C-alpha cells in the first residue's frame, strides 16, 4: 500500500511564517433574534395599517358630518322656500294690509294709441 507522509513542521512552517492567522467562521442570527425582528416588523406594519385605517375612518366621520350638514342645510333651504311661497301666495297677498287699503277697480278702460 502506497502512502505519502508530510511532516507537521514543514507544513506548519509554510503556513504560519510571517502571516497572521485568520479563522473564517460562518456567523448568523439566532432564532430568538429572528423572532424578535419579525415581531417588531409585524408590529410596525400593523401600527402603520391601524394608523392609516384610523385616519381613513376619521375622514369617513368627517364626510358623514359634512353630509349631515348638507342635509340640514337643504332642510333649511326647503323651509325657507316654503315660507317664501306662503308669503307670496295669493291668499297672503289678498289678506295683507296693503291689499286691505286698496279700493276695488270698477271700470277698466283702454286708451287708444
Amino acid at each position, binding site marked *: 500500500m502506497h502512502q505519502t507522509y508530510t511532516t507537521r513542521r514543514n507544513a506548519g512552517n509554510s503556513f504560519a511564517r510571517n502571516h497572521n492567522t485568520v479563522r473564517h467562521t460562518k456567523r448568523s442570527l439566532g432564532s430568538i433574534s429572528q423572532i424578535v425582528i419579525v415581531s417588531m416588523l409585524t408590529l410596525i406594519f400593523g401600527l402603520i395599517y391601524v394608523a392609516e*385605517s384610523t385616519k*381613513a*375612518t376619521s*375622514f*369617513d*366621520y368627517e*364626510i*358623514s358630518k359634512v353630509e349631515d350638514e348638507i342635509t340640514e342645510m337643504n*332642510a*333649511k333651504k*326647503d*323651509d325657507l*322656500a*316654503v315660507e317664501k*311661497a*306662503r308669503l*307670496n*301666495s*295669493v*291668499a297672503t297677498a289678498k289678506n295683507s294690509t296693503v291689499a286691505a287699503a286698496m279700493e276695488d*277697480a270698477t271700470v*277698466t278702460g*283702454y286708451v*287708444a*294709441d
Partner: protein
Amino acid sequence: MSRTNYQHLVTNPAASTSHRIKILKNVVLIALGIILLRLFFIQIVEHNAWVAKADEAHTLLETITAKRGEIYMMDEDEPVAVALNQTTYQIIIDPAVTEKEGIKHALETYAKDYIAVNIDDIYNTEGLRYSIVAKNVPREAADKIAAENLGAVWFKKNNQRVYPEGDLASGLLGFVNADGLGQYGVEGSLNDALSGKDGLLKATADVNKVALSIGKDNVKIPAEDGKNVVLSVDRGLQKGVEEIAVDAINNTAATNASVLIMDPNTGEVLTMANLPNYNPSDYGNVKDASAYINYTTEVPYEPASICKSFAFSAALNEGAMTADTTYFNEGYTTVDGWKIQNAEQRASIYGTINMKTALYWSLNTGSIQALRLLGGSASEITQQGREKLYDYYYNKFRLGQISGIELIEAEGFIPDPNEGWGRDSVYANMTFGQNLGITMIQTATAFSAVVNGGYYRTPFIVKGTMENGELVEKPHTEAIEDKILSDETSAAMRDMLIYNRNYKVRGGIDKPGYAIGGKSGTAQVVRNGAYDDTFAELIGSYIGFVGPEGELPKYVIMVKMWGEGQSIESGDAMNLFDKISNYAINYLKIPPKA
C-alpha cells in the same frame, strides 16, 4: 357449614379508574364530534347564511330617497311654486317616563297647531307607552322642543308635501298620500316624473352606523330627484275664477262647478277649476271622496246643446248647408217613431226659419235637420248622414277619445253609426248632445277647433320644467295639429255663435269692441236607464270664446254647474260664463278693437 364467597363483589380500584377514564374519553370524543359536526355545518353547509349574517352586522344598507319634484303655476310670465316639500317631525313620547307638565308646556308653546292628541288622555290611559303626540311639526319648533331636554321624547322625520296656496286648484293638483304616492290630479298623473328614482347606499359601517370607505363592496347609487313640473295654469286667473265660481254656487242651487279656460290657438290650458275645493294637505278629512275628482278630464257627460256647434260645423264644412239654409220648424220632429221636441216653443219661431235662427234658439229640430242635410236628404236621416256625423265627432273632433292632456282622463263614448238599435234616433239625439259621453276637455278642445280657424290641437297643461331656477319649456312634439274645418266654416260658426250673444252686448254684459260668442247646454239626467222627463235634475253648461272684434279668439271658456237632485239651467252656467269672461278680459289685458 359452607361459606359464602363474596370475592366477586370486591371492587378492583385500578379497573374502576380505567373504566371511568374510558367513559370520559368517550364523552370527550362525542363532544368533540358534535363540535366538529356543528363546525362542519356552520362552515360548509350553512356557510352562505352565516356570511350573510356577519355582513348584515357591519353593513349599512340605506335607500337614498329621491326628492319629490315641485309643482309650479304661472304668475303671468313667472313660475310660482304651488306644491313643495318640507321636512317635518312626529313627536313621540313615553308617558311612563316623559314628564307630563314639561311636554305639555313645550308642545303648547312651540307646536300648538300640531298637537295630535289630548295629552291628559294619554297620561290617564293605563299602560300606554310610546304615543304620537304631535304631527307635521316644523323643524324649528321641533328644535325648540328638543332643546327642553325632556326625557323619553323622540322625533321622527317625515317628508311632507306642502301646498302654500291652500286649497287653490286642489281638484287639479291632487295630493300625496302617507306612502309618498301622488294621488289624483297632477300629483297622480305625473307621479313617476315627480317621484324621481331612489338611490342606494351599501357600505361597511362601524358601530355608530357611519359608512366607512374601507369596505371593498361599497356601493353608492345617487338618487335621481323628481322633475319640477311647471303647469300652464295661471295662478291669478285660477284664483279669480274659483272665487267667481264659489260665488255662483252660493247663489244658485248648484253644489258643484267646473271651469276650463284654454287658448284655442295653442291648446294651452290656463285655468282648470273644480269647486268646491279641499285642502290637499289635509286630504284625509275630506268627507266626500268625489271632491278628489277632476271633473274636467275624468268624468264624461252629455253636454247637451253645446254639441249643436259640432253638428252645424260638420254640415257647414261638408257644404250641406249654410247659415241661411231654411227648414220648416213645427216645434218638434219625429225620428224612429219618437217625437223629439224643442225646449223653446214660442210662436214667432214656428214655420220656415234659417239655421242661424235655429242655433240662436237652440232648436233640436234645427240640429236634426243639419244631420239630415249631412246625409244628403232634407227629410230623412240616412246612413251616410250618421257615418259623416260619426266621422266628424269621433275622428275629426276626437270626441270620445283620450285628448292627450297630461292628466288622468276618461275616454267617454260615441255610438257606432250602424251597429245597434234605433241608430237614427240615437244620432238625432247626438246632434243636441245626448246619447254620448264626452269630457269637458274633449268638448273645449273640439270647440276650439270650431272657432280657431278649424285646427284641432292637442290640449296641454304642462308648460315645461324648472331646472336650476329657470323655466325650460317643453316642446309638444307629439301634439296633434289637424286642419279639420275650412276657414270659411270656422268663420261662419264664429258669426253664428257671436250672434247668439247679441242680446248680451245690448244688455251691456258683453263689452263693446270684443267678439264674444257662445253656446249653452242644459242636459237631462239619465235615471233608471231613461232620461228624466220631470227635469228634476239638470246639468247646466256653457261654452264660449273671447277675443278682440275682428280677430281670432284669444280664449275659450267652458263652465259646467250641477248638484245632486238640483235643476241647474244653462242660464246659471251662462251667468257664470259672463262673469268669468269679463274677469278674464281684465286679468289677461285683452284690448278691444281700436
